[in-house]
């Protein structure tokens, strides 16, 4: 493998990794605050991809507007799903909430998946590149990918700023670090968790938009994608957003690199196997020192 192929692979690996990272960060947001492992996350992503493609084909000039509208719409949808399905089951202890929440979100994932495949008739969606290709020496970078790369960076920076600067971001971090203490100083669990869930769903929608611009989405993509991202989140341990971000990037890069010698299918098998092995090796998270069962 010469150097330019390597860089080319690294770039596409980082793009796939960027999608994993965005999915994982959304999931980590919910896991950190609520202790919720949301299996419906990928279904939201896929639905957003299809919605964006439909809007785009109807109204091609409004791509930018729909790029903002779709995540906002999905934030509302996520908030609604949280209020209707999950909030009533939310208890003081997150431990007893984990397993029922897994069942509820799995059900939600099925409903959304079927909705997508009925509405779009089991087809695939993808968007043809709008921008030209940028050439820099022997390296080619399609414009779509460059735009996505820049937007991904911008969104993760924005998220970081939101968490550290704004009031609602601080409430969220307080709740995930010390739930009892946060409740004592008046942070409302239901309000903050609702915001976290809505934000996570919006992030899933953004990841869906990126996915549909880079690759093609099919209705059955959701669950495997969610599962991989959830593994990353659990392995990273709760209470951090940078670790899932890095984990997602690493997994995407690794998968793309492995796909060259072994083929895409084996790369997938290897990545799931690796994640499972890490999970069983250190169930409390790779970077967590003391043992806490979860």
């Amino acid at each position: 493998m010469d150097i330019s192929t390597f860089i080319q692979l690294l770039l596409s690996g980082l793009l796939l990794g960027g999608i994993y990272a965005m999915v994982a960060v959304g999931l980590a947001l919910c896991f950190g605050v609520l202790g919720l492992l949301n299996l419906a996350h990928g279904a939201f992503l896929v639905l957003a991809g299809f919605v964006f493609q439909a809007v785009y084909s109807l109204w091609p000039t409004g791509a930018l507007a729909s790029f903002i509208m779709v995540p906002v719409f999905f934030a509302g949808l996520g908030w609604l799903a949280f209020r209707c399905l999950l909030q009533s089951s939310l208890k003081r202890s997150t431990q007893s909430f984990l397993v029922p929440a897994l069942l509820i979100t799995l059900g939600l994932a099925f409903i959304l998946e079927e909705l997508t495949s009925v509405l779009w008739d089991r087809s695939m969606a993808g968007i043809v590149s709008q921008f030209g290709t940028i050439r820099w020496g022997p390296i080619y970078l399609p414009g779509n990918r460059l735009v996505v790369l820049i937007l991904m960076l911008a969104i993760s920076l924005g998220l970081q700023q939101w968490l550290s600067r704004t009031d609602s971001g601080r409430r969220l971090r307080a709740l995930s670090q010390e739930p009892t203490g946060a409740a004592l100083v008046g942070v409302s669990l239901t309000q903050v968790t609702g915001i976290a869930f809505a934000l996570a769903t919006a992030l899933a929608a953004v990841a869906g938009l990126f996915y549909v611009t880079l690759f093609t989405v099919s209705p059955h993509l959701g669950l495997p994608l969610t599962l991989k991202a959830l593994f990353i989140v659990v392995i990273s341990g709760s209470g951090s957003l940078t670790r899932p971000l890095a984990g997602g990037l690493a997994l995407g890069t690794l998968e793309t690199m492995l796909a060259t010698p072994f083929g895409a299918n084996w790369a997938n098998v290897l990545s799931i196997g690796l994640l499972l092995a890490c999970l069983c090796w250190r169930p409390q998270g790779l970077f967590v020192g003391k043992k806490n069962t979860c």
Partner: protein
Amino acid sequence: MLISEATGRQPKQFGLLLISLSVSAVLLLLVPNLWGDYARILLFTILLSVIMAVSYDVVGGLLGYLYLGHGLFFGLGAYITALALKHGQPLPVALLLAACSTLPVAATLSFPLFRLHGAVFALATLGLLLLGGQLASNLPDVTGGAAGLSLPPNPYPLLNYSLALLITLAAVSTHWLLCESTLGLQLSSIQESEDMAESIGINSGRAKRLALIISAVPAAMAGGLYAREISFVIPAEAFGLENSLAPLLMCLLFKPGTTWGPLLGALVLSTAQEFIWTTFPSFRLSLYGILFVFIGMQRAKRS
């Protein structure tokens, strides 16, 4: 004291159960002769559901884990049986082979899996199921890849049906015996509190490993029966999510951890499936989804 009580009332009740099950099995054996092929296939499907639900209950009900990997052993059994049949083995031998080769797989997997608890255990078992499907479609030399394995048509449909009856009988009575046995009580006490169970001297690791093995073997045989009945095994069906999720729903629908709970759940759900899904074929998944949401909300209220 609990154990002696349980073992004390064991023989009489077990006798009754065995007699009633055998009588119903003999009656069911007559069904294909009376009502023909449709009735046989319908009953066969219901019997498979019963095997899957009752064996699922050992880990999902008695032990109380949220377990999403039951379909892994179903798929494994389906492939092993299909391969054995392809090499000219008779059906009973093929099924036995499937059961015997699932045993070490379940035993090996139980070591890493039971390091995990709760939701992470559920995720890992779901991951294993996906991994099984991926492996089956990536090994075309052995499994025929995504195109699957096809078998010659079933020469003795009645043999398959009677074996299904026999295995159902065995699975249900094993479950009943297990509920009343020391191991069953150990599993229930681990469900209540693992630390407490360990502190009174229960080897929880051993109990959980045994539970997974006892649960996996009938599932593999159900998979084998399925492979023979359909004569066609593909990864998407053999390792499909439904094979894990349907038993879970059947088990949780009534009273998990009892023999009658999953039995009744399997009867009700698989009959309902037959009639609802022939009417609304495109809403299969949503129906599962709604049931999952419902059961999850119920569970959250209880805990």
